[in-house]
């Protein structure tokens, strides 16, 4: 089978149509020094069984767990999640375009919203956004719209890539970003002296990028006293054991939902979680599915409050992104339904137990960078290429690695890691 759709004849006709003599002439604007002047050095083609064997052999070189996390996590995905996600009735990336025709899909999204509200302690949730980073940016925008202010305070211990995305959003919108530093213990400083009458919100991540558990007691009161909103970026798995952000007074809760039933893949697709207090309902970005009754009084699901959306509100829309991650949201819905309250708590407890096991072993070795208790990640001093190189994001931490553990990390793997670090 030929995977390249264009024949030489096709190319000739296209070049002729636009009045260019050759392919080289078409690319003449590309600087010489970046042009590849030799054929691709690709190995000869393989048959499918050969390719399969080849990839299998390569994958078997992975002898120990990578301890990689930093936003994407390997959690166990029950078979039923994979099975149901693959059903053709559900297999769509977005909200269907003739939304109300797909009652099943809308019901899933409605249930996803409901599950997220109980998980986060919020009143309303949308049908999801791209990922944790864009959800954070949208939450900060919401705060700016609600307060009429232009300054966004963000914890320096919030995912560096999320802050990068936020910076991109902020630049175009004429808003300002100010960072609240973190302490030597690995916790974000109290925002008191950074907050002012210009601050629209304070955004922090719980647990933060280093895995450390932030102190949130009294935080919302401090933020609200300045008329600002508290935005929490939360790991949904951690909510099996940590307080729901609604409990500590957060106004908007966002997060990366990949960990809920979605594989790590190559770092995507993600699932942007977005939930808020009821008073911000009309400022929510994206799609919202509502429960209603039809002409004959039967239960039905529909897209609701669409006057926030760009096809009606045009340039004044709450957001110009209405894309949701329907399939990833479906996986999250199935995952939460299968795990239940007790199951999610168990997963979260296992994460903490494994992290504490490692913490206790590494404390006497003086390998830990931060003293604050953490959920499923630890920053350690090591020259070994394990976990994530923290200096990529924080150059002030050379030879430091962010180690991630989940319920899938076995005791043998942990003991092996401890042995490695002991030398």
């Amino acid at each position, binding site marked *: 089978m030929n995977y390249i759709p264009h024949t030489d004849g096709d190319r000739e006709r296209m070049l002729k149509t636009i009045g260019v003599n050759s392919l080289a002439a078409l690319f003449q604007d590309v600087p010489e020094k970046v042009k590849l002047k030799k054929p691709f050095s690709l190995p000869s083609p393989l048959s499918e069984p050969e390719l399969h064997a080849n990839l299998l052999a390569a994958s078997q070189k992975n002898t120990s767990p990578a301890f990689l996390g930093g936003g994407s996590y390997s959690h166990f995905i029950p078979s039923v999640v994979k099975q149901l996600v693959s059903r053709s009735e559900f297999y769509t990336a977005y909200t269907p375009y003739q939304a109300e025709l797909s009652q099943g899909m809308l019901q899933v999204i409605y249930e996803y919203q409901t599950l997220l509200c109980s998980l986060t302690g919020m009143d309303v949730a949308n049908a999801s956004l791209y990922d944790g980073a864009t959800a954070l940016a949208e939450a900060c925008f919401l705060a700016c719209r609600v307060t009429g202010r232009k300054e966004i305070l963000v914890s320096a211990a919030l995912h560096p890539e999320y802050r990068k995305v936020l910076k991109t959003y902020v630049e175009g919108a004429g808003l300002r970003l100010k960072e609240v530093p973190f302490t030597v213990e690995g916790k974000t400083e109290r925002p008191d002296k950074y907050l002012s009458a210009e601050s629209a919100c304070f955004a922090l991540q719980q647990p933060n990028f280093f895995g450390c558990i932030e102190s949130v007691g009294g935080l919302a009161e401090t933020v609200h006293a300045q008329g600002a909103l508290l935005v929490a970026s939360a790991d949904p798995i951690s909510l099996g054991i940590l307080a729901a952000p609604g409990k500590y007074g957060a106004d908007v809760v966002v997060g990366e939902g990949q960990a809920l039933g979605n594989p790590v893949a190559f770092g995507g697709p993600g699932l942007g979680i977005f939930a808020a207090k009821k008073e911000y309902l009309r400022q929510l970005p994206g799609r919202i599915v509502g429960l209603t009754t039809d002409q004959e009084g039967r239960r039905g699901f529909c897209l609701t409050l669409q006057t926030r959306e760009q096809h*009606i509100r045009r340039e*004044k829309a709450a957001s110009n992104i209405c894309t949701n991650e329907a399939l990833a949201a479906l996986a999250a819905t199935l995952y939460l339904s299968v795990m239940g309250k007790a199951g999610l708590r168990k997963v979260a407890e296992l994460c903490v137990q494994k992290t504490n096991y490692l913490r206790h072993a590494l404390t006497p070795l003086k390998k830990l960078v931060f003293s604050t208790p953490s959920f499923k990640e630890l920053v350690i001093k090591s020259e070994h290429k394990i976990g994530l190189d923290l200096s990529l994001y924080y150059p002030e931490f050379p030879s430091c690695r962010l180690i991630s553990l989940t319920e899938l990390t076995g005791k043998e793997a942990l003991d092996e890691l401890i042995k490695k670090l002991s030398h």
Partner: protein
Amino acid sequence: MSLFVPAELKYSKEHEWVKADGKTATVGITHHAQDQLGDVVYVDLPAVGKEFAAMQEFGVVESVKSVSSLYCPVGGKVVEVNTALNDKPQLVNDGPYAEGWMIKLEVKIPAELSSLLTAEEYKKLIEKK
């Protein structure tokens, strides 16, 4: 199309009406505006004490089919908002000049009132459309 335009009121080109009473001005949207919008389902009004310049956006009105910005016909400080609209936004349809009023302003520059449209002028404006 109904052309219910009370003679004693002043109007903005953005379809708000103003009823001046000393230094206080009551503001709402016209019968024509609510007719064009259809069933009003939500009215977002400002907080009391907020100040607006003439023709600055003071809120939004949302109907089943669209959302429109509300503009302050004259500059001033909001002294009262019609909180009844929170629970009964349809009052805007039922009585746009009465129980559907939106905000009361303390007018800053009374001269701005005279630059608004008269009932006759406003009638001509909506007839043209």
